């Protein structure tokens, strides 16, 4: 079985973003970038499926500029077998990315596509569902447990009310939630080995996909600042303030 895993290069989750003065976007110059945390979980799950003998090959794919090759190398160092960079401008919308990923999935005849549930930059939570729709595959989003058996994936999903288990026929798209696994770290020898693993570059036109987006950004601003709070000295003072000053309890 072949697993396709998508990864995205995003601002590191620990960095506090700054909005540009001209309100066009956030400032990403000289900011630490990393693999999106949910994509790390997706890569880890694919590797575990390979270690269990469920999968034979893991292909990792990203859509973006040349800088994204670094993210692919990280995935290769973790255990992916080969990589594909779809050369495109950074920051394409979800639907364009989904179309490109769907085209790669078709070309590769992947049996399973694993993706993160959302990227921590655009916070859209769309691409996995869109890939599934475009391929007319079933989907299992927000996965916290995956069992592959008899051509089906039994997936436990994190929902608002608790947990739900679905069974989807392969090929399918699974998106990862935080609790699915604990991603491993790449070892130095594996980082060295990853440099020799195959990394193909494809263009948007190679895949026969037209990208474009009818949504444009008018402005990006900083959220309203909260007024500075105060420190209280005791529980009694806290209760008094909540009752008489904030008036949120009676």
């Amino acid at each position, binding site marked *: 079985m072949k697993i396709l895993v998508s990864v995205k290069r995003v601002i590191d*989750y*620990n960095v*506090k973003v700054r*909005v540009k003065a001209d309100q066009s976007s*956030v400032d990403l110059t000289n900011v630490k970038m990393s693999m999106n945390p949910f994509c790390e979980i997706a890569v880890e799950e694919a590797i575990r499926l390979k270690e269990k003998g469920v999968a034979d090959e893991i292909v990792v794919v990203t859509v973006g500029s040349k800088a994204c090759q670094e993210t692919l190398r990280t995935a290769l160092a973790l255990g992916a077998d080969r990589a594909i960079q779809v050369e495109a401008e950074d920051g394409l*919308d*979800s*639907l364009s990315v989904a179309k490109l990923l769907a085209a790669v999935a078709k070309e590769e005849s992947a049996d399973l596509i694993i993706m993160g549930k959302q990227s*921590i*930059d655009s*916070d*859209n*939570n*769309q*691409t996995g*569902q*869109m*890939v599934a*729709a475009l391929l007319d595959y*079933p*989907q299992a*989003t*927000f996965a*916290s447990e995956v069992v592959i058996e008899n051509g089906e994936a039994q997936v436990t*999903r*994190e*929902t608002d*009310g*608790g*947990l*739900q*288990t*679905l*069974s*989807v*026929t392969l090929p*399918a798209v699974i998106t990862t*939630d*935080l*609790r699915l696994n604990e991603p491993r770290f790449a070892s130095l020898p594996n980082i060295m080995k990853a440099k020799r693993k195959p990394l193909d570059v494809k263009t948007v036109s190679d895949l026969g996909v037209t990208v474009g987006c*009818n*949504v444009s*950004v*008018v*402005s990006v*601003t*900083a*959220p309203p600042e*909260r*007024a500075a*709070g105060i*420190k209280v000295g*005791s*529980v009694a003072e806290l*209760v008094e*303030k*909540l009752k008489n000053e*904030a008036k*949120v*309890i009676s």
Partner: protein
Amino acid sequence: MSVLVLAEHDNKSLKPATLNTVMAATQIDADVHLLIAGFECQTVVEQASKVAGVTKVLVADNAAYEHQLAENISKLLVEMAGDYSHIAAPTTTTGKNTMPRVAALLDVSQLSDVIKVVSADTFVRPIYAGNAIATVTSTDTIKVLTVRITGFDAVASEGGNAERQVLSQVIAADKSRFVSEQLAESDRPELTSASVVVSGGRGMGNGDNFKILEGVADKLGAAIGASRAAVDAGFVPNDLQVGQTGKTVAPDLYIAVGISGAIQHLAGMKGSKVIVAINKDEEAPIFQVADYGLVADLFDAIPELENSL
């Protein structure tokens, strides 16, 4: 043209998230239709017909829609899309699961987690864990969006008188089936709509210690929430998680107990009216957003707080 809202329900009752989404929809257009897709959901239909601002309730009642699988509901929505300029759902796990599928099938973009309607084609949404606010405009013929519940007040659940239309088409997925469900039982108010939330973090130490929050929560009629650290450590189930990847809450009062205040947690509760932090580390980032901070050991402070309420 009209706005179609996908109702949030569990086949037994209409969820409050629907009321906030209808409010957002009425700010786009006065003609708001509500789709109830489910199974044996007559009570939901009754409730939906009374919701203020809804002009028509569309009912798809069939076993195929019982668990609201994205494969089925998205195709149903796509079949109806021609009559609408906007299709909206709340940013719940059901809405998030279904709507991008609808958008892709219609070949349009989706606007996720809208917090403000500027006009029928311009919307505001948070990005980067709420650290930036983007205003976006869409020229797509059909706008597909999910609505952040805490971004909009609820419309009244009574007073409306919508006409009903039963939909006959049945779309059943053959590649996806429901197996089982484990729902967390709770008598407390729903986390996303509670007016007071008491949340615990890693500082709680273990799951049993969460019980000490219950006394305070009982007295305040509060919902209990948690940080990711507390969920990952297995103290409480994941459906209590507040944050970028969990639930977004905006209660009148949010009490963060033993929570350091990572960017990802703040993303889920920064919109609260009043934030109280109780933490023994006075350098904890949570104090930068707290209106009232108490530097104290939570195991002393929480019982004392309970007694003084």
